[in-house]
């Protein structure tokens, strides 16, 4: 168990800057999730911590060690890959034992550790199989087994569940969460999946184009996004942003000036009326999901707006639907910079 500290980290491929001035501290025992759009550098950042990529400049510290010049094996990390990366010609047992064999761990200790991991991951009946004869979920558990037997200081996961079907993803997500609390280990986890990020993370790091946009707890990011990018990236469907032209007279009062955007999350919006509504919208269509409706609108400026409503919205006399939300759920951002205002 150890903390991870990245200072002023840069990574270039030729002239392409993939990571720019990354500063980040991940505490010992923390579950840290990297999210961001495809190609933003999540994997590169993870691989830089693992030592699979050399950084262009800056420092990587794990515990008290500056590990920039250490090879992956000396960094005390383990990694689970999206492709599982199991060795196809080795049995499950040998896959799990791989690192221990290389480290020349005594036979008895090795057997105990593999048995323990197999028990924890319910892999005992499968130990003599080859990876080709396992299901996706089983393969992923073997990959996790391989990563836990060496008691690494830091666990790295690169989208470990994205090749699994939805149901299995939920189960495995829970298992990884339990693994974290049981091992009490530092874990860094890359994902595309909002729900994984929100449920697993102690700390979420939102990346865009190689830059950290915001670091915070899931609740922080959800309730106080630093900028419009984070606001729209966290939460699904994404947050609606309105310019003052979209707003009613009452809505305009919520804005300090015309250079500010008003943000409302779809799940916080309620049907209102001409007098109390903050926005006036033209309904386009709506999807009935049983529990709620996803209502689609067009704003005055022509943007698509989505609201999650528990009743079917009926347009007012002027054909518009008026929506509102409580004050504490309103977000304000500068139109130019996208930064949060107050």
């Amino acid at each position: 168990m150890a903390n991870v500290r990245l200072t002023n980290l840069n990574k270039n491929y030729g002239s392409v800057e993939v990571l720019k001035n990354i500063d980040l501290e991940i505490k010992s025992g923390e579950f840290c999730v990297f999210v961001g759009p495809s190609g933003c550098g999540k994997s590169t950042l993870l691989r830089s911590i693992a030592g699979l990529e050399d950084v262009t400049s800056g420092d990587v510290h794990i515990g008290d060690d500056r590990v920039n010049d250490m090879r992956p094996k000396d960094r005390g990390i383990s990694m689970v890959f999206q492709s599982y990366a199991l060795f196809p010609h080795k049995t499950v047992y040998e896959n799990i034992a791989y690192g221990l064999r290389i480290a020349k761990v005594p036979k008895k200790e090795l057997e105990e550790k593999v048995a323990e991991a197999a028990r924890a991951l319910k892999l005992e009946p499968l130990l003599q199989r080859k990876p080709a004869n396992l299901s996706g979920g089983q393969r992923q558990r073997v990959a996790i087994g391989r990563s836990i037997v060496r008691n690494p200081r830091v666990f790295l996961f690169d989208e470990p569940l994205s090749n699994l079907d939805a149901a299995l993803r939920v189960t495995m997500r829970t298992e990884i969460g339990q693994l974290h609390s049981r091992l009490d280990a530092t874990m860094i986890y890359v994902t595309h999946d909002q729900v994984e990020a929100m449920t697993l993370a102690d700390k979420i790091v939102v990346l865009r184009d190689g830059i950290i946009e915001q670091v915070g707890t899931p609740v922080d990011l959800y309730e106080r996004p630093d900028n419009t990018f984070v606001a729209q990236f966290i939460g699904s469907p994404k947050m609606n942003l309105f310019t003052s032209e979209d707003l009613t007279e009452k809505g305009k009062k919520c804005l300090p000036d015309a250079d500010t955007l008003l943000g409302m999350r779809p799940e916080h919006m309620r049907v209102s009326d001409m007098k109390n509504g903050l926005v006036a919208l033209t309904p386009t269509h709506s999807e009935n999901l049983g529990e709620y409706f996803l209502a689609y609108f067009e704003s005055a400026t022509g943007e698509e707006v989505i609201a999650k409503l528990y009743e079917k919205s009926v347009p007012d006399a002027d054909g518009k639907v008026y929506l509102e939300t409580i004050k504490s759920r309103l977000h304000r951002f500068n139109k130019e910079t996208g930064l949060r205002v107050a």
Partner: protein
Amino acid sequence: MNNGFASVARLTLAVFILVVVLAPIMLMFATSLKGDEQQILIDFGTWRAFWVSPGDISLENYRQVLSDVQAPLLRFLLNSAVITASVVVVGIFVNSAVAFSLSRLEFKGRGLLLAVFVSLIIIPMEALAVPLLLMMNRVGWLDTYQVQIVPFIAHPFSIFLFYQFFTKLPRDLDDAAYVEGASPWQVYWGLALPLSLPVIATVAILQSLEIWNSYLWPLMVTRGVEARPVSLALAQFFGTPPPIWGDVMAFSVLMSLPVLLVYLGFQRWFIQSAVNAAIK
């Protein structure tokens, strides 16, 4: 009806191909087992050339061929076996190691190096024989095993096949192994090589056939029996008139058998790994 016709046609074709392929082999086996040289010459004009009735089987030709002091067949077979096995076994390691480095290490001129290797595939041995002979003569290797082994270990086509395979091997496997503490050598030896079994089988078959059957080079570099391979011995044997067909065929059988055995061994392996790959 149509289907029935198609399957009859297919069966006929298969039998035809089988006959065409097997005929020379049958001729060779049958003739080698006939002790009476006169009878062989009479049979040659008829279908009996492909057949020997069990009562007439004689191992006389084999006895003669094996006991010829002038041309010690067992010695030639041994020479060929040593040379072929050395080239193939050392070749597998050297060529796969070269290919693995080419596929994994990034250095300036890698593309060029690869292009050179590939273009070497098309240069025939005959074109290199004379300069190579001069070199070998200079180092005093004539009439040795190594003169027939060393120049043939590096095999561009094998390198190419291994390279093709290794570039398709997911890099995540390497990375996973490195994270687990493996050295580059352990990744090559413990992962890349065992996973390339199908390529190894292919390369072993290709290279062993090439070496076992090679003729020109051994002719240029061997004089005595010490290092002479069996291919050359057969030609000499055959070239001494008048040909004694029974002996020639017995000789041919003995020369073909080892290759056949090696091939069958590797083929089983080859099919196995092809099946494994299909399951994944």
